[in-house]
């Protein structure tokens, strides 16, 4: 027999981007401890619809921790209390009967609220558009085994590439810095031999875009790594800083752009 719990939810409601939002309190009963956090949110939606009220809007899609769409701050922590876990993979067995749970959107100036818990994360896309790619026109590739890549290098690139672009790092950072995201993306490509040719251009362009989008500076707080559902290491930021310094120096001597 599945165990259930009753909860008190304190949820951020905001009708539109320019509206003033506020917390609303909801009581929710009979939540299965085997359900995920988003399934609990579904139950709340059904409850609200049955009363003729608008359900809480929240972003979600794959519900298996990989698409990076879900984005809610649960009791002050992006994606909630479990380490290395997205909100969709967080299960209610980690909460207690009668608990008050506070649910908010990502809080960061570059991620304005669209509605309730839904925010606009398009600045991440623009960072990628400015340089987060390896130019390799379709059909122009050499054989995949032509350039050997040591296992260590491939594994390291994979560690960086594991980022799901959810934005929890920004939401967790007191400066709303996007350094962990940008560093993971830059390092993934810069560490591979295929990405070397564009390394300096890429690094400068992506950092420039990041700054232009209004993200704060990095002061090595480390909240980003703690909140990251894929546990992207703070080391990535060190790699980005090294590549950035090198690119700036080269750019000073002879422009790389």
């Amino acid at each position, binding site marked *: 027999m599945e165990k259930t719990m009753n909860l008190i939810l304190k949820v951020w409601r905001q*009708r539109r981007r320019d509206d003033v939002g506020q917390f609303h309190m909801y009581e929710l009963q009979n939540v299965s401890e*085997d*359900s*995920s956090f*988003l*399934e609990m949110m*579904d139950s709340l*939606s*059904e409850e*609200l*619809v*049955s009363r003729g009220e*608008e*359900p809480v809007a929240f972003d*979600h*899609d*794959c*519900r*298996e*921790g*990989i*698409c*990076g*769409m879900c984005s809610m701050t649960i009791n002050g922590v992006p994606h909630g209390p*479990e380490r290395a*876990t997205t909100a969709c*993979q967080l*299960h209610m*067995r980690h909460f207690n009967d009668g608990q008050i749970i506070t649910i908010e959107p990502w809080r960061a100036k570059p991620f304005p609220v669209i*509605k309730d818990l839904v925010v606009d*994360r*398009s600045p*991440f*896309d623009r960072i*990628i558009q400015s340089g*987060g*790619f*390896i130019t*390799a026109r*379709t*059909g122009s*590739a*050499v*054989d*995949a*085994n032509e350039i*050997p*890549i*040591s*296992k260590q290098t*491939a*594994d390291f*690139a*994979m560690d960086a*590439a*594991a980022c799901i*672009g959810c934005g929890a790092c920004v939401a967790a950072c007191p400066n709303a810095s996007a350094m962990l995201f940008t560093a993971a993306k830059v390092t*993934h490509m810069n560490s*591979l031999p*295929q990405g070397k040719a564009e390394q300096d251009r890429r690094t400068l362009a992506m950092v420039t875009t990041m700054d232009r989008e209004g993200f704060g500076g990095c002061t090595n707080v480390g909240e980003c790594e703690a909140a990251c559902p894929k546990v992207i290491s703070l080391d990535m930021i060190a790699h980005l800083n090294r590549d950035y310094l090198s690119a700036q120096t080269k750019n000073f001597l002879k422009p790389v752009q």
Partner: protein
Amino acid sequence: MNLDSKIPEGPIAEKWSSHKFNMKLVNPANRRKYTVIVVGSGLAGGAAAASLAEQGYNVSCFCYQDSPRRAHSIAAQGGINAAKNYQNDGDSVHRLFYDTVKGGDYRAREANVHRLAEVSVDIIDQCVANGVPFAREYGGLLANRSFGGAQVSRTFYARGQTGQQLLLGAYAALSKQIGLGKIKMHNRHEMLDLVKVDGHAKGIIARNMVTGEITRHAADCVVLATGGYGNVFFLSTNAQGCNVTATYRAHKRGAGFANPCYTQIHPTCIPVHGEQQSKLTLMSESLRNDGRVWAPKSADTAKLIREGQLQANDVPEVERDYYLERKYPSFGNLAPRDISSRSAKEVCDEGRGIASTGLGVYLDFRDAIERDGKQAIQERYGNLFEMYNRITADDPYQVPMMIFPAVHYTMGGLWVDYNLQSSIPGMFVGGEANFSDHGANRLGASALMQGLADGYFVLPYTVGNYLGEQGVAAAGQITTDHKNFSEVESEVKARIDKFLTINGTESPRSFHKRLGHIIWEQCGMARSKEGLEKAIRDVQALRKEFWENVRVVGDADGPNPELERAGRVADFLEFGELMCRDALMREESCGGHFRVEHQTEEGEAKRDDDAFAFVGVWEYIGDFVEPALHKESLIYDNVKLATRSYK
């Protein structure tokens, strides 16, 4: 309905190259005069949009998520097949072709499958060039693993997140073109209808999911890469937003829908936990390389386990039935998905299922951990084990995983010819949204392969061919001022108004759940004439009830998840009926389609090649009117039709 498959002449291995040579080309300077709409930004859509833009076409790309990087291709775990034969174990283009046709239970089109196998090798090259960090051996060369339905190791992988890495590769290429201004990206937009002018697809009507605005978009042709329809079952491994609306709307505008009853039930998913469940989670098939599938030999033992009186690890070896190894000794735990799923169902039907619901079997890593050590297993499957642990709170290093089949992939889709053009001229369909390559059952690690094959290497040629045939004088001539746009737009708006004014008592989600229940019971792993006839009646009744009693709260002028869901469920209700009709029509068992009336004495699927070696293509005639069935005969010149055997 014209079902000319346009398969090129000549020997199968030369069809694609000679066809490429015979295609019309568009001068690079003229390409910028054309606009192509691509709906969907997954592997097929993202790769096609990027490649077409690289060639010089203007592209408008649409996705319902907040970023193209989130398309559901991202969730594929295990890997991507390619006939590289890097393992020197006898693989070849012909073998991948053969395995895919056989795996699809001889219901796929030979020429398309051969092309897929041919371009598979180019896909791996392209992905590596784009920075996909595939797993490597210590020597720096690419690693492979084996997958179900094949006896060679041809699967390339990036930990347990191959889908994400491949998608990020295509997304990076797409992003570059967005940055250059060649692609206009429309995030958080949902296609709600197709617009035709003089019989050709010339645009779409979409809804901006942030502002609620209904927008018109015109182009010289339209590519749909909008994924599968697995969410008709409500519970599936698909993302929450996956839906049939784009393809079903196109179907209602004249595109034939092929083989909708071919759905894949994946054998290794986490069992259902209860009523509040919203989705099912897949555990990659790659786990079957090392995990052994078993159930207790006796129903009594299974009962003790269900009641919590006996632990899996305490079941002695003689009491365990490794049923896949027993029934299919040469493929063992790597038997194809349809066969593995059905075997699990049989075991549970016999009362030997575990999990609290009785709907589950074990996937056990005990022997692999003893043989290779925990570390080796952790390297191979670490993230999958963690995911399992997060969801179930069990530790698969200590206790066997519990698994049960779940809806995962849909082989059916819009009918397309060899050029991936639907029965509506100017509308192309790629990836899971079309029907073409997997027949009645898809092999593991072949979905990513097909999505990228269509997106990188097929559509960029065939779309160009179509545009070339239309001539440069036609480029950009149709604009959104054309009266057909305003007509379709009014229909879309009227439908939205209707949703908002029914003011019933039941939520769209509730209707979706009820629909899923009907479809799963009657059109799931085992189907019967009686059950399907009942399902058609039930779905029709439910559809009627929906339009009388659905309650859609909120308004149309901004984000409204309930309105979005209502539209999708309304289309699923119509589509579900079509699926049951197709299953009812197909009086045979093949691949993922199992009719209980058609099985061997051993309970294996029994095909009827004389009567059913055809693609069943449905034409929409009208509301509550039985659709018309058209047939495309399947001709096998290169593969001998045989009863599939994995014994």
